[in-house]
């Protein structure tokens, strides 16, 4: 029987994002060079919220984009079918900017690798930083986050699920245990 444990509730998600926004503002005081890019799908919603907070903190409009990494997956030839793609929207020049890539969960690091590769097809960012709501470990690539909402020690058998209110009606980070059924 599966058990689901809530590790961050709505309030916890809100506080984690606020803290990340402050850390981003602290490390990037020059707002004119900053841009935020979220990875589809939930990372894009989190990026949107971070961007709104940074607008307040830095009193500046930070360019916001979203990225679908389907084109850049390293397992295109290994998955059974062609994955469904979403459109990417990066309508500003990334060249010479510090781009903060936002995702919900950091796990193997392969998604982030694909996102970095995708980003470089739009130009040459000066710096790329990584913000994640949850870091569950088990990296398979030399990738580390710059901003972490919550570190979650997990086993590979566990599933970490992030819910965002824009898609799921509420915010939460949960862990489903080993033999757990997928969450609804």
């Amino acid at each position, binding site marked *: 029987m599966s058990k689901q444990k809530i590790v961050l509730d709505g309030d916890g998600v809100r506080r984690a994002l606020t803290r990340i926004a402050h850390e981003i503002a602290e490390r990037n005081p020059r707002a004119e060079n900053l841009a935020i890019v979220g990875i589809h799908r939930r990372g894009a919603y989190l990026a949107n919220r971070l961007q709104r907070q940074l607008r307040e903190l830095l009193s500046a409009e930070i360019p916001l984009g979203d990225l679908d990494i389907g084109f850049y997956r390293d397992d*295109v*030839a290994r998955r*059974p*079918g062609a*994955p*469904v793609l979403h*459109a990417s929207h990066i309508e500003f020049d990334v060249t010479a900017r510090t781009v903060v890539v936002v995702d919900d969960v950091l796990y193997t690091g392969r998604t982030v690798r694909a996102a970095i590769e995708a980003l470089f097809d739009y130009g040459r960012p000066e710096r790329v930083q990584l913000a994640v709501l949850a870091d569950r470990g088990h990296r398979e690539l030399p990738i580390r986050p710059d901003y972490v909402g919550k570190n979650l020690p997990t086993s590979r058998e566990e599933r970490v699920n992030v819910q965002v209110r824009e898609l799921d009606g509420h915010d939460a980070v949960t862990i489903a245990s080993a033999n757990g059924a997928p969450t609804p």
Partner: protein
Amino acid sequence: MNHLLSIEDLDRAAIERIVEQAERFAEVSDREIKKVPTLRGRMVLNLFYEASTRTRSSFEIAAKRLSADVVNFASSGSSVEKGESLKDTVLTLSAHKPDAIVLRTPWAGAAELISRWCSAAVVNAGDGKHEHPTQALLDVYTLRRHLGEISGASIWIVGDITHSRVARSNILAFQKMGAKVTVAGPPTLIPRGIEALGCEVRYSLEEITGADVVYALRMQRERMIESSLPSLREYVACYQINARRLSARQVLMHPGPVNRGIELSGEVIDSPRALITAQVEAGVVVRMAVLYELLAGTPERNPSQAPEPQLA
């Protein structure tokens, strides 16, 4: 989907899936680097037994934007001129292990035939008078972008229906998308029994004002249609789409290349109602979506149906 051989094989959901994916690919063409690594290491073989500029080049651009390798093989200047058969050519080229073969031939059914001879995914880029499915898909894509919704639209396909594989594929595709299709042209250029596909038939353009979309076909002089017509002048007088016949609320499409002054007058080609250049642009993104659909993911092809190629 293992091959793209005809629109007849596709249902509405499959058509929608491909054109929706194509919309994602459109964004790639606007980037600084117009290329994504998705099909890196895959090989696409363009095998063309008929002259073609836009279809061949748009397949080539589509494959290259997805980082696939492209080999072009045209029948002129090749072993075909020395008498090699289609089967032997396909088996020989299969030795290079292409992942997809894009085939254009003057023979109806050739694409379906070669799909049984090789393990590659086969894309029909026009087989005689049979079908030209990627043209129909890019036309659906273009119309959806322009009208928003194809369902319920009235689409007139005008000209030489008999010799046109574009007409066959488009009648089927537009109808599957819920449009009402009418074909119009001289009786000698409309095959008897075409109503069986579900379209209406008109031998004059009197009622064309009711159409939302006018799709003119090329007068294919290389297929010797003159013998089916009193004269091209007569055709122009009765069936040319010109400013008098095309109203401001209608849009105009044409698969290209246009015979300016024959099936279309110069003024309508250059008018904002013409979607002809949008169709060409759509050609690349739709073919990207088709190659992606066929080549991404592990092949589902049943090995027993795709034997190791052997020279007969």
